[in-house]
């Protein structure tokens, strides 16, 4: 059993702690998961440990990574926590999407991997929005509200050049873990950067296209619903009730597709849509 354990925290419906055999890494993980609520106990331990010259990331009998790269191990640890959180959450409708909040209104970004969700969320938090999540939008089916899931924003190498100030400051022993991803909690981007429970106002399907000029097209509510439903982690569990929850999201939102080749252009487009009163009929 690894000797260092983070404080237990809640990620959606999961209470977890991370155990490692590296004290400096544990200190870093305590910091990057620090925006999640602390809990007195935990349901599971997520383990990162060195075994026979390799690093293993496991949760109970599930192995998320085994190999020699510390950077890939840390990236897989973040995936493990998120995957376990989605798996353990039965009371919320969960959509694979990023999200930000401002003045009690949410913009939801359903998109495929590598579409630039995390980069967009980080860029918008820098501009004064509050981060709801970079990966899983949580909807309360009883109220239709969007709940914050402030896991650390996972920034891959491709984002580093446009967000250089977000590089985590870590002890030298932790540096080798930062070769693939930076894990950046919203509160580290700016004070007050964590989103609050809010109502949906915008559904924006973002797409990063290198070299493209920024375009913003209207998306029909039907297309937006299809995008949300196809990105829903647990629609099979919720069935028609979940479908109606998603339909209510698009009914109260204005829906768009934003394609951009720059973070600045994408952030400008989202900001303009908010200022145009997205979601206010």
């Amino acid at each position, binding site marked *: 059993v690894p000797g260092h354990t983070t404080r237990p925290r809640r990620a959606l419906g999961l209470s977890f702690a991370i155990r490692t055999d590296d004290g400096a890494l544990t200190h870093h993980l305590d910091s990057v998961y620090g925006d999640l609520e602390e809990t007195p106990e935990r349901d599971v331990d997520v383990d990162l440990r060195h075994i026979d010259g390799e690093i293993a990331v496991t949760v109970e009998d599930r192995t998320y990574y085994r190999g020699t790269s510390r950077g890939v191990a840390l990236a897989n640890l973040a995936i493990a926590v998120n995957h376990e959180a989605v798996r353990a959450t039965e009371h919320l409708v969960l959509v694979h999407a990023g999200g930000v909040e401002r003045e009690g209104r949410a913009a939801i970004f359903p998109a495929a991997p590598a579409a630039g969700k995390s980069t967009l969320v980080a860029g918008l938090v820098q501009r004064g929005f509050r981060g709801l999540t970079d990966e899983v939008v949580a909807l309360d089916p009883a109220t239709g509200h969007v709940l914050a899931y402030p896991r650390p924003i996972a920034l891959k190498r491709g984002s580093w050049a446009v967000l250089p100030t977000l590089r985590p400051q870590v002890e030298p022993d932790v540096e080798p873990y930062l070769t693939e991803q930076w894990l950046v909690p919203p509160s580290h981007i700016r004070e007050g950067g964590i989103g609050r429970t809010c109502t949906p106002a915008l559904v924006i399907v973002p797409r990063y296209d290198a070299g493209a000029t920024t375009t913003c097209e209207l998306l029909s509510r039907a297309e937006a619903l299809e995008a949300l439903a196809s990105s829903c982690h647990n*629609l099979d569990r919720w069935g028609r009730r979940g479908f109606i929850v998603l339909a209510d999201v698009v009914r109260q939102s204005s829906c768009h597709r934003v394609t951009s080749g720059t973070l600045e252009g994408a952030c400008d487009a989202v900001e303009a849509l908010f200022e145009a009163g997205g979601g206010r009929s």
Partner: protein
Amino acid sequence: MIRPDAIRRSFVPTRAPEVAWVELDGEVVVYHEPSAATMVLNATCSLLWQLFDGRSTLTEISRELADEFDAPVRAIQHDVMAATRELGARDLLAGVGPEREANGP
């Protein structure tokens, strides 16, 4: 259970009970619960879907649409048949099965 291509003008279309749907700005989005699939229906299917009341035949629906759009019944009927068969092939109508099931043992 009939095959989609066996649908005739006397057929009375009924939405399958395992399908949830919503209308958004004139477009219908359906959710097929057993397969957890979501589909946006095209304009013709969206319009028809909302007219399927479980009592009217396709002939009656076609006449209603012909009156509404001031168009020849024959032309409307052709589109109505094609769209209804398409909905049946997608497993969205009660009593209509996709080809693969109809061809089973």
